[in-house]
């Protein structure tokens, strides 16, 4: 036991321990955050437009693409998913909502496009959720030397259940947004239509009276001319 050298080895040991435990954690997360995870995006698709998104996927990764049209026209859009060779994996025309799961057969850039080219003047708001692989784990797998304890596995199952609750909530929110946009459209249409119709009614009824009067005025002048 050498009392002089006691503090520095303790500090170095602590730093080493900290380094060994934390840095692989951060490093593992950084590496894993690349090719896995989910992207949820809502964007506006103008009429006669097509928008494409790309993602680099490694072979064997299970991916899911879900999309939903929120506002616009007949609430439908064309969707097309292609693999790196250009082979079409999924193609649907005028779909309002769909979900497609596939496993990447090869490495490369996968492309999916949403098209509103069939529509002439309505632009659409489209939501999509592209899930690639599994969500990054909270801790890198190298730390997993022992099986999960009962508490931890209970936490994992609650986490999965809550994730599906959040997913259902998102879809419910989108359907509600769709219903609400239809209701607001109806409201403005009713306002314009009622004012317009009242005006047309007034114009037509006043016009009828004057037109009728003009028929009788002309007849009288012709009869007097014929008489003399």
């Amino acid at each position, binding site marked *: 036991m050498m009392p002089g050298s006691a503090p520095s080895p303790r500090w170095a040991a602590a730093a080493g321990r900290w380094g060994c435990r934390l840095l692989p954690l951060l490093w593992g997360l950084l590496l894993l*955050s690349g090719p896995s995870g989910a992207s949820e*995006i809502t964007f506006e698709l103008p009429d006669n437009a097509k928008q494409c998104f790309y993602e680099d996927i490694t072979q064997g990764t299970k991916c899911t693409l879900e999309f939903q049209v929120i506002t616009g026209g007949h609430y439908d859009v064309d969707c097309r998913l292609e693999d790196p060779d250009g082979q079409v994996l999924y193609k649907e025309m005028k779909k309002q909502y769909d979900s497609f799961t596939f496993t990447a057969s090869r490495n490369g850039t996968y492309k999916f496009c949403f098209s509103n080219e069939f529509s002439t003047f309505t632009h659409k708001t489209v939501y999509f959720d592209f899930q690639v692989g599994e969500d990054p784990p909270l801790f890198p797998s190298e730390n997993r030397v022992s099986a999960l304890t009962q508490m931890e596995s209970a*936490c994992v199952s609650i986490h999965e259940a809550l994730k599906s609750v959040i997913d259902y909530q998102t879809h419910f929110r989108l359907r509600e947004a769709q219903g609400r946009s239809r209701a607001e459209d109806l409201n403005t249409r009713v306002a314009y239509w*009622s004012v317009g*119709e009242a005006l047309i009614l007034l114009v037509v009824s006043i016009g009828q009276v004057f037109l009728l009067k003009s028929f009788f005025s002309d007849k009288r002048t012709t009869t007097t001319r014929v008489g003399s």
Partner: protein
Amino acid sequence: MAGVGVKRLQAMVWFALLVLTVCAAGAHGLYFHIGETEKRCFIEEIPDETMVIGNYRTQMWDKQKEVFLPSTPGLGMHVEVKDPDGKVVLSRQYGSEGRFTFTSHTPGDHQICLHSNSTRMALFAGGKLRVHLDIQVGEHANNYPEIAAKDKLTELQLRARQLLDQVEQIQKEQDYQRYREERFRLTSESTNQRVLWWSIAQTVILILTGIWQMRHLKSFFEAKKLV
């Protein structure tokens, strides 16, 4: 002592690898192409007091080599975020790679718009940019290993923290749902009222114009001595 030295060396190696990974890790996942002055907008419908973190990375298309350059310094992207009332929450210029954060104060549709400043790209006519984008909302924006390190949580405590964050997000979303449903109900009731008043008003106008028409014509025919 030798063990401590090995541990220190290990820590340094991990740190070096970490730095390397940070430099090399570009793949933010999803990407899309945008033209020079094109503006792309994304909508995020979020409850209030929710944090949104966006990461993006841009690459320029090199016409000669017909490939996307790995990184182009000097390229800038302007990020503008508008809240549901149309007020600008964030409007900043970032570099070719950036990270923007904002917290919503009103619930609703927030619009995140990105466009590149075209002064440099004017040289490359017909150029396009590849933009890697990643937007994380609410609970997904939390960086759990960082939180674990900062608050010194055990694994179980960290899992419990994650579950708590998720449940909080669900609660906020439900409050927002209640607020939206109220708006929906107000819109429907307003439509109902408008239809009711309009039908009454139209009937009244119809009757009044009918009466006016008959009286006017009667006086006209009497004046013409036809009646």
